[in-house]
């Protein structure tokens, strides 16, 4: 019974000093909003990275020409070619599949629609190694590659960007660099992975690409699928050994190629996202504490201002506990109202940012409950000192206070 009275008294006194209460709550509002938004964004970013990890093909090691840092400078120097791919397939025991790739930004045309997209020339095992599923049609065959057939498989987002229904596009002609290719399949979209949207790529047989599009025998990269039984770092050493031998690099000489494990890159990204979200949550936590100190400050002022009221209440029979609870509940009410506003703000900010980043809205009930509990806790901790001060006042002196 008394508890309910206390809550009403607390809310009334907040209403009596509404503007001050709002200013006081601001710290908590910002703190809780930050916690909610940051936790949501952090988990959203992690979930996005996790999805990418799952979509990525099995254990794939990618060999690229040139050193990573000076790729632009060294372009045109030493290239990869099919002999390298053959050597890796032959001499690296851990390699279960090898997928050579050549690619470039090439203008395409369908009907009256023009686009410039990444066109990848590769072998027919590309889809199984890189974990692509076909939405419609089929992948090109080994025979088509050898015969340099003009066939193409396109990414799942491309029909949309060409304003054509996916099921209608099979069998149609696509002009790539002026040469007509027949579309034979569409991959399921995978979502953005790392850089660039692979769902807008076009894939053609490697031999066709080299003969008709690039005009040389160079490869941009060689994907090497590593057996799951072999640790990645051991496989990397093995691939590096074979590549150095193939490229006749003297001991101590610098590699003219780069090895990268995309999964490793992504897990680094994941770790960074995790650290980042902890950091942001820490900052948000600090702002909550600062907000709590603001509450404590204003509650101390309130207790001093209302010394006479406390004296009156005590004279009329309020116990220490009554007074303690009254001010504690007032501090907690400030925090909880601020917390509720903060949750609403933080949630909308998180949803807005998530929709901009293209993530699913990662708001969880547990995060909201946590924030609510946190603000109640802040109110409890920072309200206790002023409330104790109020409860301990001597009624005679409090009544005399001007």
């Amino acid at each position, binding site marked *: 019974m008394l508890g309910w009275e206390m809550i009403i008294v607390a809310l009334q006194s907040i209403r009596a000093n509404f503007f001050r209460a709002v200013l006081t709550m601001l710290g908590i509002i910002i703190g809780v909003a930050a916690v909610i938004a940051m936790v949501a964004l952090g988990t959203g970013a992690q979930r996005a990275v996790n999805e990418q990890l799952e979509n990525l093909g099995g254990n794939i090691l990618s060999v690229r020409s040139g050193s990573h840092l000076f790729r632009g400078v060294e372009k045109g120097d030493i290239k990869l070619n099919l002999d390298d791919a053959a050597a890796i397939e032959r001499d690296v025991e851990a390699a279960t599949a090898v997928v050579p790739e050549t690619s470039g930004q090439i203008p395409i045309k369908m009907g009256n629609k023009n686009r410039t997209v990444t066109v990848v020339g590769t072998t027919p095992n590309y889809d199984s190694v890189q974990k692509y599923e076909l939405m419609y049609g089929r992948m090109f065959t080994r025979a088509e590659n050898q015969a340099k057939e003009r066939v193409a498989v396109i990414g799942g987002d491309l029909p949309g960007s060409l304003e054509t229904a996916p099921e209608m596009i099979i069998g149609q002609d696509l002009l790539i660099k002026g040469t007509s290719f027949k579309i034979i399949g569409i991959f399921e979209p995978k979502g953005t992975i790392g850089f660039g949207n692979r769902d807008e790529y076009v894939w053609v047989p490697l031999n066709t690409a080299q003969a008709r599009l690039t005009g040389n025998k160079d490869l941009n990269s060689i994907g090497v699928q590593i057996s799951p039984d072999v640790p990645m770092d051991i496989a990397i050493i093995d691939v590096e050994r074979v590549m150095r031998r193939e490229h006749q690099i003297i001991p101590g000489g610098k590699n003219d190629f780069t090895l990268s494990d995309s999964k490793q890159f992504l897990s680094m990204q994941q770790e960074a996202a995790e650290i980042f979200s902890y950091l942001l949550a820490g900052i948000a936590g600090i702002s909550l504490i600062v907000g709590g100190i603001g509450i404590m400050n204003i509650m101390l002022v309130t207790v001093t201002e209302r010394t006479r009221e406390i004296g009156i209440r005590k004279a*009329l029979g309020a116990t*220490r506990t009554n007074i303690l609870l009254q001010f504690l509940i007032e501090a907690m009410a400030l925090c909880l109202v601020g917390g509720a506003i903060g949750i609403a703000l933080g949630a909308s900010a998180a949803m807005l940012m998530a929709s901009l980043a293209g993530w699913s809205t990662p708001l969880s009930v547990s995060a909201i409950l946590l924030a609510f509990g946190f603000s109640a806790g802040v109110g409890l901790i920072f309200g206790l000192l002023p409330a104790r001060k109020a409860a301990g006042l001597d009624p005679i002196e409090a009544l005399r206070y001007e």
Partner: protein
Amino acid sequence: MNTAKQNPSLIRIRDLSRRYQMGDTTIEALRSVDLDIFPNEYVAIMGPSGSGKTTLMNMIGCLDSPSGGSYALNGTETAGMSDTQLARIRNREIGFVFQTFNLLARATALHNVELPLIYTGLKRTERLARAEKALQQVGLTERAYHKPGEMSGGQRQRVAVARALVTEPSILLADEPTGNLDSKTGHEIMALFDQLHAAGQTIILVTHEADIAEHAQRQIHLLDGQIAIDTGKSNLSREAVQ
């Protein structure tokens, strides 16, 4: 404890003293006071400032604790009671009326009167019914939803009296109740007190004005922390003391 049953005193004070420490000096606000007050008495405590009358009133109102001696209210010894027990006594047994009214400025008259009953733990409907009744007693029914700022001094003091009466206390304890009022309004308040006394209410009045004190049947004059004159001692309390 047996004496409590034999003694019909509402207030039984024996050898009561109160000392304050002010820096290096000890001030003896009350020195070995003996006092009995009986039900339905109307007592005025008088004395110059510094005589200890406010301290005595704080003692009787259980706002302060004695440094020595005993104070029994309704036969219950209050010395050594906890804060919570004293708060309970203030709530149930004492009705305070202050010189400066001491109403909550933000609350309506009705809510001010209801306030002590919140600490009694009564249900809201009963609280409101009793608060309305108390306001009616002081003739302020039509001002129930006004705030103190919208009322005259006399009306405010009547709200304070209603608040003091609402718990049906054993003692109405008034500290200079007319001190902040003009003489006409002061007389109105005193008339209200007389009326309450006639209805059986025990009233203790602290004042330094002789004409206000004359409303009471018994005057107690304090001087330097001791009772100098007690006009009522001859009638009632002599046999009780023996």
